């Protein structure tokens, strides 16, 4: 089947309109989960069906798309989604954060600071931050409505009691604009501070769970903590073995069977740009 037979960016216009309405509502109520009629997409649930629908609804012919998976541009998931839009929308794609107008991401926020003319789209597996505390959807919606979020601190309390610190390392719960509790999707908590007052528009799509939410530009995003156990991000003793960065999020890579290992930047574009000697 040739790409020409698809509507622009795969989704039909009616569906895009429906998703855009959900997006407008999500932007108007920062952090609030807006239900939407999620469609079947030509990739399995858990691979970014929510993110891909959001991207399809906002992308235009002039847009430049970057897709990352755990910070990397060259993984199967990232390449497939980039190709998907290159075929169905004919848009230009890039691996450079600075060149992109839309960044779709799974589980990372790029190291290069985003700008006000960029949009970042997160793929979200489970949107409900209270899910593991309260299994009933009717009850969690009520808890959001009444801002009853004390139970979330019980979870942090338990972490500190058992392990001496909050061990939640990714998908660390945040409070948006002082109101709604939100899952930032499974990004490492290292990236949480980047959500706070970010100049770019941040959109979150959960395809299987049929929810969309958003953080408008410059919105306050606070990570939950205790006064005597403040939120902090992870740090490394090592530097990136390739580019030497000591400020980026590092992956530990096992290199052989003798225990050899190296630490490298998880953000491939950032690392590559530093090695090429240009500013990322």
């Amino acid at each position, binding site marked *: 089947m040739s790409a020409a037979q698809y509507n622009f960016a795969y989704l039909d216009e009616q569906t895009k309109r429906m998703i855009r309405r959900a997006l407008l509502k999500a932007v108007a109520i920062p952090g609030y989960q807006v239900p939407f009629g999620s469609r079947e997409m030509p990739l399995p649930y858990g691979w970014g069906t929510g993110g891909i629908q959001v991207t399809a609804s906002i992308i235009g012919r002039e847009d430049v798309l970057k897709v990352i998976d755990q910070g990397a541009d060259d993984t199967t998931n990232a390449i497939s989604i980039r190709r998907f839009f290159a075929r169905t929308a004919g848009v230009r794609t890039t691996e450079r954060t600075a060149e992109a107008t839309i960044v779709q991401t799974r589980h990372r926020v790029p190291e290069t600071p985003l700008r006000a003319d960029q949009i970042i789209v997160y793929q979200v597996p489970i949107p409900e931050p209270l899910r593991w505390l309260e299994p009933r959807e009717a009850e969690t919606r009520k808890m959001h409505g009444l801002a009853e979020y004390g*139970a979330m601190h019980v979870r942090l309390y338990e972490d500190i009691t058992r392990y001496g610190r909050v061990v939640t390392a990714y998908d660390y719960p945040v409070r948006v604009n002082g109101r709604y509790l939100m899952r930032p999707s499974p990004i490492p908590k290292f990236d949480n501070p980047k959500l706070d007052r970010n100049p770019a528009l941040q959109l979150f799509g959960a395809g299987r769970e049929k929810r969309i939410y958003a953080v408008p530009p410059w919105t306050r995003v606070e990570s939950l903590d*205790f006064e005597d156990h403040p939120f902090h991000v992870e740090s490394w003793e090592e530097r990136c073995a390739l580019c030497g960065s000591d400020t980026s999020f590092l992956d530990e890579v096992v290199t052989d069977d003798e225990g050899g290992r190296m630490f490298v930047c998880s953000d491939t574009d950032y690392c590559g740009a530093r090695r090429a000697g240009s500013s990322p």
Partner: protein
Amino acid sequence: MTEAAPLEAAGALTALAEPPLLEVEGLGKSFGPVTACAEVSFSLWPGEVLGVVGESGSGKTTLLNCLAGRLLPDSGAVRYRLADGRMADIFALSEAERRLLARTEWGFVHQNPRDGLRLGVTAGGNIGERLMLVGARHYGHIRAAARDWLDKVEIDAGRLDDPPAQFSGGMQQRLQIARNLVSRPRLVLMDEPTGSLDVSVQARLLDLLRGLVGGLGLSAVIVTHDLSVARLLAHRLIVMRRGRVVEAGLTDQVLDDPQHPYTQLLAASVLQA
């Protein structure tokens, strides 16, 4: 058992000058054709403990659930005196206000502690939850309060970081009480608090409850089918049968000189030790 001293009633008597904390008027609740409660009226004054007795199926627990705002009654009103002195119909309050009351000013002790505890969360987390719900954000303070309350309910402080799933039934019940009282509620509703415990554990729990209720000046409504529990804890009793209040009065008066035939039967059914 008849020799057992009732709780210090002086507090209840002086309190009569004050307006009541809780007023129930003509409360009715049916489940389809089954009438669970009908025309139940009573008042509860600050510092007073009211016992609700009756056989199983007499509507005691339905009444309690209506008082707690967990069930919407078909008729009648439940009025509660808010901290600012205003009497408020709890079903006219918004759900947000009612839920706030339920986690700050009210406590609810379930018959089965498993309904009132988070079994996978440590004892400290269970006690601290209400504090965190109302905005406590200092780990050290929450923990100190939890330890203090474990001590008050006679649980070894070394169990602070154990989950209640590893506690005995009596300890779970005491933990549930601590979890409710930590936020210093003004009104505690208890549904058969000693129901599933053996007698020696019951006795200690009753001792503890008497001490706490007296010491904190709590008002409480205790639902029980056990007349000796009622005699030990309650200042006043109401006797329910088939959803209606058949007799009400001071505890000793009701139990020693019952007027209604059903109350007479109930009082006579207690095995004399």
